[in-house]
C-alpha cells in the first residue's frame, strides 16, 4: 500500500488570518525571530494499491477538484518515501 501526500497552501496574494493569529501567539510566547506564518493543509491519502502513474494522476485530479480551490490555493503532491 502506498501513501500519497497532498500539501495545500493559500496563494501568496491571499490574506491568511489563521497564519497571522499563529504568528501573534508565537510572539506572545516569546518565540523570537519569526517574520511571518502561513498555515496550510496536509492530506495523507493511502492508496488501495500501488502508486502507479495512473493512480497518482487520479489523486492529482482530486487535489485540483476537491482538496484545493485553485482560485485561492496551490497544491503540491508527492508519493511518501520517494521524495
Amino acid at each position, binding site marked *: 500500500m502506498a501513501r500519497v501526500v497532498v500539501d495545500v497552501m*493559500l496563494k501568496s496574494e491571499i*490574506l491568511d*488570518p489563521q497564519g497571522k493569529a499563529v504568528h501573534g501567539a508565537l510572539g506572545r510566547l516569546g518565540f523570537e525571530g519569526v517574520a511571518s506564518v502561513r498555515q496550510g493543509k496536509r492530506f495523507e491519502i493511502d492508496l488501495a494499491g500501488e502508486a502507479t502513474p495512473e493512480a497518482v494522476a487520479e489523486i492529482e485530479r482530486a487535489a485540483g477538484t*476537491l482538496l484545493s*480551490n485553485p*482560485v*485561492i490555493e496551490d497544491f503540491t503532491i508527492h508519493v511518501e518515501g520517494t521524495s
Partner: protein
Amino acid sequence: MRIGVVTFPGSLDDRDAARALRHAGGEPVPLWHGDADLRQVDAVVLPGGFSYGDYLRCGAIARFAPVMGPLIEAARGGLPVLGICNGFQILCESHLLPGALIRNDHRKFVCRDQRLRVENTNTVWTSEYQAGQEIVVPVKNGEGGYVADERTLDELEGEGRVVFRYLEDNPNGSYRDIAGITNARGNVVGLMPHPEHAIDTLTGPTTDGLAMFRSCLALIMGDSWSTAARNHESPVINAEGEGVRA
C-alpha cells in the same frame, strides 16, 4: 411562482428564505441536497448557515451535493440563482461566481446590521432597487472575506458586476469592500449579508431585503406584477399568497 430553497445538512436560514419568498408573493419549494432534482422550479435560493460541517473549505463539499449537478447546469443556462452567505460560498466553490470567501481578517464572527450600497440593478435579483440605493440588512459570518486576484477584481469592477458594496465599516476584510457579485449574465447573484432577515420590521432591522425576492418574482412574472408590487396592490396574488401569471 415556484422558487426552490435548498436544504443542506447544516443550513440555518432555509426557513427564513422560504418565509421571505412567501412575503414577496412567491411559492417556496423545498429542495433537498441529496436529490438531483430541481422539481421544475423557476428559480433557486441557496440559503445561509453551514453545509457538511464546512469541512475543507466553506461550501467545498456542498458544491458536489447531488442537487448541485442539475443546479449548476441550469444556472449556466440562465436559471435565476441567489446564494446568501453559505450559499454565496457554495456558488464560488462551484465556479458559477469568481473568487472565494475566506476567514474574516479580524478572525472573529461578526453579527450586526450592515449598511450596503446597491451598485448594479440590472441583475435578476436587484431590478427592484434604485441604482446607488443604500440599504441596511443583517450580516453574520465568520468566513465572509471576499477575495480574488487583482485581474478578477478589475474585471468585476469594469463589467459592473459588483452588486453590493459594504458602506461605513467593512465587516470582514472583503477586498474592495465587496459584499455581493453577479455572473456576466446577471442571473446568478451571491452576497454575504442576509436580505431574508430584513423583510419585516418585527423580525428585521428594515424591510430592505424584500426587494431582492420581489425582483426575481417580477422578472419571472412580467411587468404587471412589478407595477402592482411597487404600488402595494395585490391583484396578482391569489388567496394562498401564490403568484398568478398575469
